[in-house]
């Protein structure tokens, strides 16, 4: 152990001698680089602020290139808002969506972040080799690549994670009607509106909206080769058709509403 320490001390001594012989003064050689970089940083910050102001509007629904200037004022009693953290926390946010099972929640909230932080703090004590050349540090390179990749992927997935918000999906119904061709089908239109607000899209995807959960299939073309009555009965009691997960909508919706849903699903034969 002390031999390693002696080697390290000797290496540092050599470092100091090398710098003394061949080094250059910090000012102006290195400080010039620092100043240029700082100028770039300040320009980028000012540029972003200017772009934000001039492309965004006052209206929270008109985001511009960099997001709206304001969201709605805080409302602790809201029922239609999708919370998201700031972008640099997206990787933690998506980690929470990965750990879907209640018993594993604590892993995603405190387990993994704590372990990563401890590893980061303890790094100089885990890697005690003197070697600094990259090609001779395979563990370091692999760890760095894995970390960058996973944080990048988690951040990207967190950014693109979508949740269906009843009010937003409702606005998509006319587009669906056009693409699927049921604009003139009053039953199907009413069924589409029910489908949009009843939370079906929290498990089903449809024409590019919604999210896929618990194995629920995409419903964009589900109507091919089926009748409306089949769908009405399925939605009314999925258990009869061997589906153990889907809620039993017959307990909530009446026959008219179930028929409307059936008509909508039967009309969804895939976009033409």
């Amino acid at each position, binding site marked *: 152990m002390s031999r390693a320490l002696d080697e390290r001390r000797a290496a540092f001594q050599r470092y100091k001698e090398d710098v003394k012989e061949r080094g250059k003064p910090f000012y102006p050689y290195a400080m010039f680089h620092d100043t240029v970089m700082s100028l770039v940083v300040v320009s980028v910050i000012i540029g972003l602020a200017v772009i934000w102001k001039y492309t965004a509007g006052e209206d929270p629904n008109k985001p511009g290139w960099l997001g709206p200037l304001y969201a709605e*004022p*805080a*409302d*602790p*009693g*809201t*029922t*239609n*808002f*999708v*919370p998201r953290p700031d972008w640099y926390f997206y990787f933690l946010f998506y980690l*929470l*969506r990965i*750990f*879907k*099972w*209640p*018993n594993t*929640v*604590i892993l995603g*909230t405190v387990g993994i972040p704590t372990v990563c932080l401890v590893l980061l703090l303890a790094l100089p004590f885990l890697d005690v080799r003197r070697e600094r050349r990259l090609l001779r540090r395979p563990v370091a390179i692999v760890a760095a690549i894995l970390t960058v990749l996973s944080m990048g992927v988690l951040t990207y997935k967190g950014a693109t994670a979508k*949740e*269906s*918000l*009843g009010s937003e999906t409702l606005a998509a119904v006319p587009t669906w009607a056009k693409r699927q061709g049921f604009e003139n089908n009053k039953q199907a239109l009413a069924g589409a*509106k*029910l489908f949009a*607000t*009843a*939370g*079906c899209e*929290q*498990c089903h995807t449809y024409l590019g909206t919604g*999210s896929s*959960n*618990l194995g629920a299939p995409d419903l964009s073309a589900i109507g091919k080769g089926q009748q409306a009555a089949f769908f009405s009965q399925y939605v009314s009691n999925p258990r009869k058709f061997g589906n153990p*997960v889907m*809620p039993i*909508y017959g*307990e*909530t*919706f009446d026959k008219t509403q179930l028929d409307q849903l059936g008509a909508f699903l039967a009309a969804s034969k895939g976009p033409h």
Partner: protein
Amino acid sequence: MEPAHGDDKPHLPPPSLWPVGFAIGVACILVGLIVRPLVIVPIGAAIAIVFAFLWARDATRDYRTVSVPEVEPERRPPRRRARAIPAHRGEAGMPEPEPGEIERFPRSIFLEGATLGFGALIGGLVTIPVLGPAIAEAFVRGKKHEFDLGPITNFPVGKYVITTFFTDPSEGTVSRRTAYIRNNGDSPKGPSFTIISNRCAHLGCPVQPNGPVFDNQKKTTHSRSAGDVTIIPALPAGFGCPCHGGQYDKEGNRTAGPPVRGLDRYEYLIRDGHLVLLKPFSVWKVNGTGANAKIQKYPLTNPGDHVHGIESWLYPWQPPR
């Protein structure tokens, strides 16, 4: 006239206290002029003149008599003639005692102990005011929980309504809360309600009703304890959380996703035909529906904390609410 003791050195007057008296006299003059009564001014002038005379007499003594040095001369022999060096050369800081110079005898140990002890005492005294507002205040029991939500006739039987109210109307929007309320009709114990909180049991996000919401049928009432109460009918087949995909059924039981237990509920009572909300509590599972529901209750628990099973051993204490 030259001072008697030498004429190549600048004249340094001997030390004396007369200038103090002179200054007091001048101060009296100024005080008298500004603060009044004016009678103080001549008194101050007299003091100033007397002390000025005494001061001048003292300062010019050397010119009048042979001066006796008033100050004790330095007895140490002069050091070797060294060039004066600027303050920052040589030892940069003030001289420290040599290791052997600090003799450890009982008085020094007492002083050390007293210094450290008083320091610890000061640290403690400063910490207590910090602990009070910063930490203890957060755990003081909250205010009364009683919110009058209006007559029970506003709540249609067998249907859910989205009810928003204020837990402290004087605080404004920050105290706005939402509950999903269903009137279950009459039961042997009186009118029965299912009152579910809209905070998800996973991490507290606002849970949405999975069903159409009939905004055009909104009703509003007002009460002193709950502020403006709005009641909006809805037709949820269940509840879903937009943050991480948690799903609940119509009794608030978790059916899918990361929530660790069912949705919280509120206690309630009926007073004069009005529905009054009381304290919230946490729920593990609900068996049965509506008025016949058997609710497995727990004290109000932080979202994300298990209440049942082995994992609940990780959360033995909840702060007072």
